[in-house]
């Protein structure tokens, strides 16, 4: 019995075969963090798909409970790696969240205001976002933040903000545009490739050093690097949070800013962004003006590790400086473990390449940690929206990292980076962790740099 619906829900409007692709065999269950946490089917991929299908079939309406379930899902996509049937979960997940927003089942004034401010205001305006980052930097660099923390002024914040305040990422003094020229060419020889580097938004403000390192390793490997100024957000935040319209606006903006025919590759160095950036072909597939360009974009979009391995990157001859410093004595190697960003390994299926890069570093021993491809709980804004599950995953992850005894944990996504850093800090008795977090590309860039300075000596 189908209830009368005046319009199609977002799920009913989907290609039904995507929903049908799930044959509910259950292979996804053991890899789904939320199912492992609760042991309840509704918190599993196949359970969520069953709920989506019930809505698409008109057996169920879009309820508040459904909305909460869709936001309880991490969107880590571990299920897509486990799924032999090849269910396109990202498409289902984004359509389901868009449906939740369309039906406004979670709507309340506070949530609506936050969503408007972040999705529709701040993250649609690249210059405003950087201005906010600059203000935050001033607050931190002037000592005001330390003072406020010491005076316990943070207690004046609402409870959930007070909890989140210590996790505020540290802003960089220089953002990417100040560190990277819009066109840079390899120091010697004619460039073998011409590539474009995407600087991201959080990455740009809090990890602009990663962007600089990305450009450095590309130059070192014969790539001419183009880095457009004041880049927009890629829209992953919007797409993952049910705001497809804004995601499309941002995707079009990215496409307008580049001449794809002049590029061999578009390079992303953040797992979460890259995973979404690859989906532009799907996101704009029924936009006659942009569909063709979006397809070309998706084809050329490469994760930095993937690209370097593809072009046969040069293995450095010297150990990176920061690792040499943390080796106990000369000649011994430094242990590094690798945490896989979900959207890098599950979203982009790039898993082998970052390890290859780490293993190429002289003086580095890569020691695998348990559940390396499990979510750390950062998951976009999940650590803000679902603090309990995020904290459980963070503790689990930190435990596995510490069990390796590694002095460094490498990871290639800003969200994971912050989550690991905060988790390791909290787990260290003195509040200062002995395990440091680093992007693999930063280590590679350091190794190349160490090589050059050794040659000068």
């Amino acid at each position, binding site marked *: 019995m189908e209830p009368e619906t005046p319009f199609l829900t977002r799920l009913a409007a989907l290609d039904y*075969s995507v929903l*049908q*692709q799930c*044959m*509910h*065999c*259950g*292979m996804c*269950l*053991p890899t789904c963090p939320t199912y492992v946490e609760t*042991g*309840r*089917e*509704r918190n*599993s991929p*196949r*359970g*969520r798909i*069953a*709920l989506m299908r*019930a809505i698409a079939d008109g057996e*169920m309406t879009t*309820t508040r*409970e*459904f909305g909460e*379930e869709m936001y309880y899902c991490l969107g880590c996509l571990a299920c897509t790696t486990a*799924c*032999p*049937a*090849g269910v396109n979960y990202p498409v289902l997940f984004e359509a389901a969240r868009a449906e939740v927003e369309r039906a406004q089942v979670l709507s309340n004034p506070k949530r609506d205001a936050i969503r408007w401010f972040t999705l529709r205001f701040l993250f649609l305006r690249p210059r405003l976002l950087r201005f906010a980052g600059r203000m935050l930097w001033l607050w931190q660099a002037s000592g005001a933040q330390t003072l406020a923390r010491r005076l316990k002024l943070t207690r004046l914040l609402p409870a959930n903000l007070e909890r989140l305040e210590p996790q505020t990422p540290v802003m960089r003094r220089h953002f990417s545009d100040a560190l990277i020229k819009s066109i840079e060419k390899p120091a010697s020889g004619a460039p073998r490739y011409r590539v474009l580097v995407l600087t991201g938004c959080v990455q740009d403000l809090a990890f602009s050093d990663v962007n600089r390192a990305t450009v450095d390793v590309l130059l070192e490997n014969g790539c001419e690097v183009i880095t457009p100024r004041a880049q927009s957000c890629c829209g992953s935040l919007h797409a993952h949070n049910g705001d497809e319209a804004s995601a499309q606006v941002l995707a079009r903006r990215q496409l307008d800013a580049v001449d794809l025919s002049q590029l061999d590759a578009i390079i992303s160095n953040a797992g979460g962004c890259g995973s979404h950036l690859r989906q532009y072909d799907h996101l704009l597939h029924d936009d006659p003006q942009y569909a063709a360009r979006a397809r070309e974009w998706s084809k050329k979009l490469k994760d930095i590790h993937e690209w370097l391995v593809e072009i046969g990157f040069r293995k450095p001859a010297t150990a990176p400086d920061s690792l040499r410093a943390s080796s106990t004595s000369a000649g011994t190697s430094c242990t590094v473990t690798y945490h896989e960003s979900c959207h890098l390994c599950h979203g982009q299926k790039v898993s082998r390449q970052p390890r290859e890069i780490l293993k190429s570093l002289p003086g580095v021993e890569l020691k695998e940690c348990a559940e390396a491809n499990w979510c750390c709980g950062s998951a976009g804004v999940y650590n803000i929206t679902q603090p309990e599950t995020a904290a459980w995953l963070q503790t689990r992850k930190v435990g596995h990292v510490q069990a390796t005894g590694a002095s460094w944990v490498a990871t290639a996504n800003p969200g994971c980076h912050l989550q690991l850093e905060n988790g390791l800090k909290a787990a260290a008795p003195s509040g200062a962790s002995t395990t440091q977090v680093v992007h693999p590309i930063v280590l590679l860039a350091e190794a190349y740099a160490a090589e050059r300075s050794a040659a000068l000596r």
Partner: protein
Amino acid sequence: MLPSSFLTELQSAAPSLTVLTAREDILPYGFDGTATLKGAAGAVVFPKNATDVASILRLSRAHRVPVVTRGSGTGLSGGSVPVPGCIVLCLVDMNRILEIDTKNLTLTAEPGVITQRIFDAADAVGLFYPPDPGSMKISTIGGNVAENAGGLRGLKYGVTRNYVMGLEVVLPDGSVAHLGNKCVKDVAGYNLRDLFIGSEGTLGVVTKVLLKLLPKPAARQTLLATYASMDAAAETVSAIIAEKIIPCTLEFLDQRTLRCVEAFAKVGLPTEAEALLLIETDGHPAAVADEALRIEAICARHQALAVRRAATAEEAVRLATARRSAFSALARLRPTTILEDATVPRSELAAMIRFINTVAQKHRVEVATFGHFGDGNLHPTFLTDERNHEEMHRVEAAMREIFDYALSLGGTITGEHGVGLAKKNFLHQQLGDSSFALLKTIKKALDPDGLMNPGKIFDLAENATTPSSAHAHGA
């Protein structure tokens, strides 16, 4: 709908019990791993121990509420699909390994323990739990016992039944029975333990399992042989058995299956081959080396295109894991994937394979075949679309012919998945009048109210209700 006072009484009888009733919570318990079968429970309850289970069963009996027991819901015959007005008794929270007895080589576990964990726990102390159903990473041991699950190692090591030494069972009246013990020999009374293995939740609820373990084989070797024809692969299997070699695993994949598995697992399977055999031998290193050589020679004699050895233990595990994904990987091709497990005596394998292909052509349906060739257990898998009614009718016609033919060869309608809902219309034909009547006599003696997973395996009454099916597929 559940009787109004049932849930309140349940909560007071077992206050710590988790009971789910919200639509969003219980809808995902409406199915298992079987295609096209769907039902709706009135509530899903999560007992913590046998006492909880006993309270639930007593109360269900008082209120005439049917009970459908399930673990992870990976069954392949609809055994745990809810029936109207039932509660689903989900045992996943009873998930402790209670004991590993290295003196008697046994392991005691609650029913909700994942099969893989049992294997790992045994492995950690140098022991071996052989049954390895395709879903072992998530299936529960309780479900394995209820369905008498098989697996890739069935050829040499048998199925779940061969490893169950004892069971604790809550009977439909709420009493708790202990069946079996740690003795290797025990002939006291009827073997009631075996009655519950494979009873698909229709006689009682298993709340504890005592398992037999084996010493871990010291060596193993995995071989891959490719063929230009299915017949040549089938003949190789017959020849291996005829030469009195019993490998641990002797798996077959046809080209369709091979390509889907490779698309998912990317383990370097030769997708150009028409057929592939995955063979594993295990045991004493010298025996393994000898068997591997002899198997290679037999493959070569039977027109194998190539025979390759897994280079490392990791590669062997990757290959076996890839094979376990075959059924789900086939879902890449069409919207609905209906898996059967008709099984024939091994000498009839080649005939059965030929027949499946003929029937598929005759009814114009897509079938991919893989399975445990060594034990005659085939998995012809229909690739179809449940929304195409006309095609579904052709699938059903083809399926019926396959069952009829398997039975005519002295085979069975199900080798390892159970009857459940999917195959109950064919059971009478296989068993004949008196055995079929005997099943009902036993059911009535143990479950006189007919509340334990009613309508599964067989219908007690002619007008019994069954869950809805998008299609009359087997139901």
